[in-house]
């Protein structure tokens, strides 16, 4: 384990390499360019491949191809580029191809702004492409967490044969923090993963091979398609236990903030400041945004809580719909929002909490 000072994007790339990722394809878009740039330097050192695709569409499909061949593979982009990648992601989900991708998200919609934002929540958690598939979506609030999540994401992707998304905003992607890097998987370990888990890979097999590889991102027969979707649905249901949240000073809280990613980190410092002033604020931070950690909202004492405050860098608010569903009308849900590349301010959060308590 080595401790280094690293930029979020580069740390994500290094974590992926250490997890055994040996294929990356991407296309430049701010604020995630350091990811492809890092892979371009690093892949040759570890015997992997980097391709700068001609577009996001092409690069995600290169990942579809490489992952179909049984190699741990990744792509990354930022919001408008992720919209283009939705084609390939949907194909991977349908064909049950494990892959990992990161959205270092920026303002939207459209080309939006290149500043950090959390405008892709619905896209990330509800409809990352056509066809109603779902994915595990991790939302790091620090560079360290981005590293740990990326490292593990490949295991989840392989386990489920499904894409996994690291949803980080431009702040996480571009800031530098000290991080502890995970162990580098050895070539033997990487080969073992491929041997043990990927007999289905499309690499060329003898005709009498039992696990004949037909990678089909769809089915002609409606019965087959329904069966495949039922199987996928059972997989999604099994993810209930993967829902993760950080519950911070919520036991006696009168206002509970709900947030994810960088907003949650800013909200946490608001909670600390408010607590110093004797104001009972707490925080539920969604670590996975899909599945949504509803369980954390069951631990709140609704006898004490005046309101849950949704804090997010999106206007209109999106995360709030999942928060409301989890709160189930047991107390009001208020919002503290910013958008268009403005970063959430701690003071705005504090002000919102004060307003709730003054009511």
């Amino acid at each position, binding site marked *: 384990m080595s401790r280094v000072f690293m930029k979020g994007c580069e740390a994500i790339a290094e974590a992926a390499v250490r997890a055994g990722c*040996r*294929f990356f*394809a991407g296309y430049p878009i701010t604020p995630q360019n350091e990811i492809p740039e890092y892979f371009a330097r690093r892949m040759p050192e570890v015997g992997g*491949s980097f*391709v700068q*695709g*001609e*577009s996001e*569409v*092409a*690069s995600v*499909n*290169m*990942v*579809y*191809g*490489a*992952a*179909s*061949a*049984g*190699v741990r*593979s990744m792509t990354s982009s930022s919001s408008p580029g992720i919209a283009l990648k939705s*084609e*390939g992601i949907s*194909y991977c989900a349908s*064909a049950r191809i494990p892959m990992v991708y990161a959205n270092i998200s920026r303002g939207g919609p459209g080309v939006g702004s290149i500043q950090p934002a959390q405008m892709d929540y619905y896209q990330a958690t509800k409809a990352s492409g056509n066809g109603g598939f779902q994915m595990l979506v991790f939302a790091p609030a620090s560079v360290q967490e981005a590293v740990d999540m990326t490292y593990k994401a490949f295991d989840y992707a392989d386990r489920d044969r499904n894409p996994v998304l690291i949803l980080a905003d431009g702040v996480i992607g571009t800031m530098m923090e000290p991080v502890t890097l995970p162990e580098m998987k050895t070539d033997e370990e990487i080969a073992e993963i491929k041997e043990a888990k990927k007999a289905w*890979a*499309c*690499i*060329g*097999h*003898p*005709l009498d091979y039992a696990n*004949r*590889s*037909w*990678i*089909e*991102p*769809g089915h*002609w027969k409606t019965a087959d398609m329904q069966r495949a979707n039922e199987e996928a649905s059972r997989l999604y249901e099994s993810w209930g236990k993967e829902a993760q949240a950080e519950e911070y000073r919520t036991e006696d809280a009168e206002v509970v903030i709900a947030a994810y990613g960088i907003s949650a980190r800013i909200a946490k410092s608001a909670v600390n400041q408010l607590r110093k002033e004797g104001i009972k604020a707490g925080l539920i931070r969604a670590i996975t945004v899909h599945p949504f950690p509803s369980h954390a909202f069951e631990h709140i004492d609704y006898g004490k809580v005046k309101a849950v405050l949704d804090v997010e860098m999106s206007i209109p608010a999106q995360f709030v719909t999942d928060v409301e569903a989890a709160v189930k009308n047991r107390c009001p849900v208020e919002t503290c929002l910013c958008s268009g590349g403005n970063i959430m301010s701690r003071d705005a959060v504090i002000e919102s909490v004060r307003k709730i308590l003054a009511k």
Partner: protein
Amino acid sequence: MKQIYARTKTIQEDKVSGFCPGCMHGTVMKLIGEVLDEMNLVDKAACVLGIGCCGLQMDYMAYDNTTAPHGRACAVATGMKKANPESLVFTYQGDGDFASIGLAESMSAANRGENITVIFINNGIYGMTGGQMAPTTLIGMKSSTSPQGRDAKEHGYPMHMCEILNQLTAPAYLERTSCNNPANVMKTKKAIKKAFQNQIDGKGFSMVEIVTSCPTNWGMDALKALDYIEEKMLPEFPLGVIRDQ
């Protein structure tokens, strides 16, 4: 009695093809199977199918394959070959797939000189979706989205993919063949063989463009379609080796 001809092992025994009568997708599929067999490459074959009638092969072939999103076969093949250079990676794509929606992926893979093989089926029309105009539709040729016939002023001219890719430095081999008569079928087989051999030899991007018919959407019987290839398609798409380096 000595058996001199048999169904290629690469086509599943229990399957009956669903291609229309006279469609050459089946012919080319058989040729690919025979070549793989003769070159002893079946165990390495990793086919990337395009979307369209070409994709129907998924149900009949016996070797490894995957289906790419519409137009992306060359990108999928790029990833597949880089991830596993041991496989023989080839795409099988129609003209809508390769030359329209996938033009960027096709040209870029060719420009990078990816060590893959492209089998490009030029039947001048979108088959599966019911006969709409393709980039390869001939001037004057009727389709469901050019009901008065393709008009150059409105729709542009037929695209010649071999010649377009020949502008690039990287491709190793570009040949246009047809399957309209036995001699041309044999030439197509030879071309496929060469394109696969190029990949084994690490020469880089090879493409065989095969001029074929779509009797169903051309609104002709199978024999008329053969005449149409000879009289109309081949003057526009001349056969031969365009690049061999």
